């Protein structure tokens, strides 16, 4: 923005540079993984009903569970844990990076 501002605005879709921008990027990435696997998969199951792909989803089994039931009932909670771990590792890393950067600027 060319207009000088004394204070940048807080907006999820227009994060300010630095830590907040990095944080918002990982938030949006995690939310993408969350939406696609939760709702995207249900949409897929629904759209494939009665087709070859649909019967593949319901006839293939894992741990004796039909694939779609296993994915929703067992894999998704695990996927959520995985997403949270990724988020935490990444945020730990950017926090360290930015705090090191900040400390140097005070030297």
């Amino acid at each position, binding site marked *: 923005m060319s207009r000088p501002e004394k204070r940048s*605005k807080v907006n999820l879709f227009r994060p300010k540079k630095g830590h907040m921008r990095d944080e918002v990027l990982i938030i949006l990435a995690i939310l993408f993984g969350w939406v696609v696997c939760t709702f995207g998969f249900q949409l897929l199951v629904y759209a494939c*009903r009665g087709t070859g792909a649909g019967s593949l989803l319901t006839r293939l089994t894992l*741990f004796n569970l039909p694939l779609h039931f296993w994915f929703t009932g067992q894999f998704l909670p695990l996927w*959520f844990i995985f997403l949270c771990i990724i988020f935490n590792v990444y945020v730990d890393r950017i926090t360290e990076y930015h705090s090191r950067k900040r400390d140097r600027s005070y030297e």
Partner: protein
Amino acid sequence: MNDSSWSIFVVLLVLLSFILVGLRQKARESQEYGFGGRFTGRIGGGAAIASNWMSAASLMGLAGIIYLHGYQGLAYVIGWTGGYVLLLVLLASQIRRFGKFTTPEFVGERYGSRPARLIAAVISIAISVIYCVAQFKGIGLIFSFMFGLGYEQGVTYGALAVVSYLVISGALGVPRNQQLQYLVICVAFIVPLMWLARRLGYFWVLPQFGYGRALTDLWREFRIDFTLPFADDSLFQWCALCFTLMVGTGGLPHVLSRFYTVPNVRDARWSVVWGLFFIALVYWSAPAFAVFGRLIEARRGMIPSPEAARAAADVVTLNTAVAAGLPGWLVGVLAAGALSAAFFTVAGLLMTGAASISHDIYYSFLNPRASERARMQVAKGGTLVLAALVLIIALDPPGLIAEITAVAFALAGNTIFPLFLLGIWWDRANRYGAIAGMLTGVLCTVAQPVFGGTFPAVAALFPVTSSALCGTPLVILVMIAVSLATPPPPEEMRSFLEQEVHGHMD
């Protein structure tokens, strides 16, 4: 001893031991450190999150709804775990940096408005009351199961028991050992399940995976398909329910405050991961109870009518354990786990609800000059009034445990979640937007029962258990529109958000 006296014995033993352990811990801590409460690391923090979360809905309602609806019921499993992702990435660290411990306090501070704070307090109390109704139903069912009483008697005695427990542990000043609570609740749920799987001849070491064969047998022997997707309801209903439970998690009064009990933001974030893992352990197990319950019924030649199945759904875990011939003490363990979960949830919610009546409504709004003692009395009276209100509603419960709980989540998702989301991530959101948003959220939550008869489209878009899929986006739009049409919030608050909440690293 017969089965029911075993159950009563084990339940009494478990509840009493929580008080004794709490008292011992209190004595030791005041000796060693001179103050109560301690930090037990990220895993301990996670166990506390999970123990806070475990309620009759997780231990009884979840298996019941899956027993009834099969694949459709999995929306509850996903909704109640996936919500933590939202909470962690969007709100946890920011709310902690904001530094307000309860929803009304956050709303009062962020939006700088006493009416907004009052409305938020009333909504939080309403959420607690609805949530408690579901717990009371669970407690009533366990009491009638243990003592062979009718439901009304069971729920009345159960209410008396939970209030007495609250008074006794309050009078003795027993601290809650949430790590121990989680351990007891989790073991009391999973060990009977392992026993059940072994008895039925399935893989019992990890019954969470072992029930797959039971599912196959159910189909092969009786042609009951438990896994058929979208059999009773539509894709929209599945997604609406799942989304509602997820956003509701982000707005529940007793969940948010957990982030303040760990010393720093990093530990708070990591304890969410452990908490989610501990919660998932129970949620991976609940469908197994439902499947074993159906299988045992079918093998005995009982295919219940839809009404009978609905009536039995909330006690399917206990009924299945009895029908499979589990020893009496183990049935007692199962009942004790569910009862403790319901007890602690009720205790926590009634106390926060009463504190909110005393602090946010009485002290902040009605009588700012009230003495400490008067406020304490209002809080104590408030606990009893709330308990009585919950009991009256629970005497004729409006639905299944999981369904009643879902309404509380819908209200939280429609009102409090947008308030936090925009309050943290958009500095332009102001008090007028907040008030308009909360009122719209309440309207969305009650849309089906109130306007559904006149406008069928409203009933279809805002089903009472799952109104947030359409409700939350609508509330967010209303908040944005009203905020933009009215003057911006004070400069100090906007700078605080920019510098403290989002600029701590600049």
